[in-house]
């Protein structure tokens, strides 16, 4: 394997996409490892593919961050067919003229880096459609 995802919920196949843990009882979706459902208390989860296109429901342009974090960047939330996803808006200038509330975006992959074994870590972001 020469590539690995930045996070477990990113699937790097021919069509990269995100996969959520979905509570089989109530349908609540999560991206982290679960102990139980915070909505209904259910303990069984299936996996659900999250649509790769969505609408930017909020964002901020971070100009001042912790040491080592490159700025500026756009952080936001994307409504992907009813599932909220956290991610950066990429491949567009990080300013309020190019990034707007309600804009349509789609998932894309973003290189993170390569480790000493030559394995490339790959993250994700959302770019304007």
């Amino acid at each position: 394997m020469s590539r690995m995802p930045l996070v477990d919920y990113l699937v790097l196949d021919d069509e990269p996409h995100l996969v959520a843990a979905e509570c089989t009882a109530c349908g609540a979706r999560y991206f982290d490892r679960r102990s139980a459902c915070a909505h209904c208390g259910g303990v069984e989860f299936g996996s659900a593919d999250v649509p790769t296109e969505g609408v930017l429901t909020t964002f901020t342009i971070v100009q001042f961050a912790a040491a080592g974090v490159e700025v500026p960047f756009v952080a936001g939330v994307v409504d992907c067919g009813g599932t909220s996803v956290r991610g950066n808006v990429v491949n567009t200038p990080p300013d309020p003229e190019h990034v707007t509330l309600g804009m349509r975006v789609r998932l894309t992959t973003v290189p993170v880096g390569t480790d000493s074994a030559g394995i490339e870590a790959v993250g994700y972001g959302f770019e304007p459609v």
Partner: protein
Amino acid sequence: MAENVWILGIDMTRFGRHKDKDTLDLGSEAALGALRDAGVGIGDIGVLAAGNLIGGNGFGQLLQKQIGQTGIPVYNVANACATGATALRVVVMAIKSGEVDTGLAVGVEKLSGAGLLTGNARKEEGGHWVRDGRYGAVAPLDGRVGTEIMPGVFAQIGMEYGYKYGGVDFELFARISEKNHAHSTLNPKAAYQKRFTLDEIMNDVMIAYPNTRPMCSANCDGAAAAVLVSETKLRTLSLEQQRRAVKISASVLTSDPWTEGCQVLPDINTLTRRAATTAYEQAGIGPADLDLVELHDCFATAELVHYDNLGLCEPGGAADFFRSGATWRDGSTPVNVSGGLQSKGHPVSATGIANVWEVATHLRGEAGPRQIEGARVGLAHVIGLGSACGVHVLERAAA
């Protein structure tokens, strides 16, 4: 029916940089001030609830070692920025339960020069990627998958309101900050007492759009403390003590119930709405009855959403409500006449008691040049991200 609880004494230190005072100096100053204001001694206190996030463990006991080791139970509490309100709430519960008739709540923080809260410096990378944590992340996510810095998180919370309801832009948020900084010029306890023009605010250093530096709460040092008593106890005290006492007509603490997306971006709205609704029920009042409100403007973008969450305006109408001038000190619902967290400062654990001090001081008619004339009822609100929401409704003693 549980007893009513009253504020008998309350005090806060000046907020700002206290170079020569440590956490215990500040905590002692506020606690002793509250006892003096109440006209009681440490020996009268039956329970102590103490909040301090940065200074280490066991702050309550360390404070006792300065102001009085009387053997009473101490609850060291932590609830992020709602820590002070939580301390207050613990004492309210203890008195309502009937176990004690008098208690002390203290919150203190030394934060001058702390810089950005959360958002940890990124470590050197290299070696082998190793999956870590509940996301199986091979590298830090701050900056790669959204932002963890508070100005950025709360910027998104304000912008989300704009997405839902429209009518929101950078200038609107900056104008909220303009109001609070203007208010602060009348508050000698505020860390910053400088009026800024709208241009100055909008052209200052951008931290996380749309929050520029003056639109962010100021890290500073400070402490606040309150002595609470049961109504039965209050009736045994002097007429002067009874006259200055302030009734806690509602004391509510909530956490965030699950909503879609709440683990992606914190939902600070639902728990605030619930706290406010419960508080109005407890107090038997509505938002229209409020003479002043101190709400948690940790960022200008947060103040806007809380107009709506606290029911001060029609649902979705926060932008119009603000533009009407309602929340300026001469408006129909003055909000943050202390200057708010943006100028008064935000020494985290002190904030939830300092907000109550501000409201109580107006209800007592002791707020000096910034007095809201004839104030009878006020509300103090805080949010600790994670989340916890404290709402207290206060009423002036009947004349």
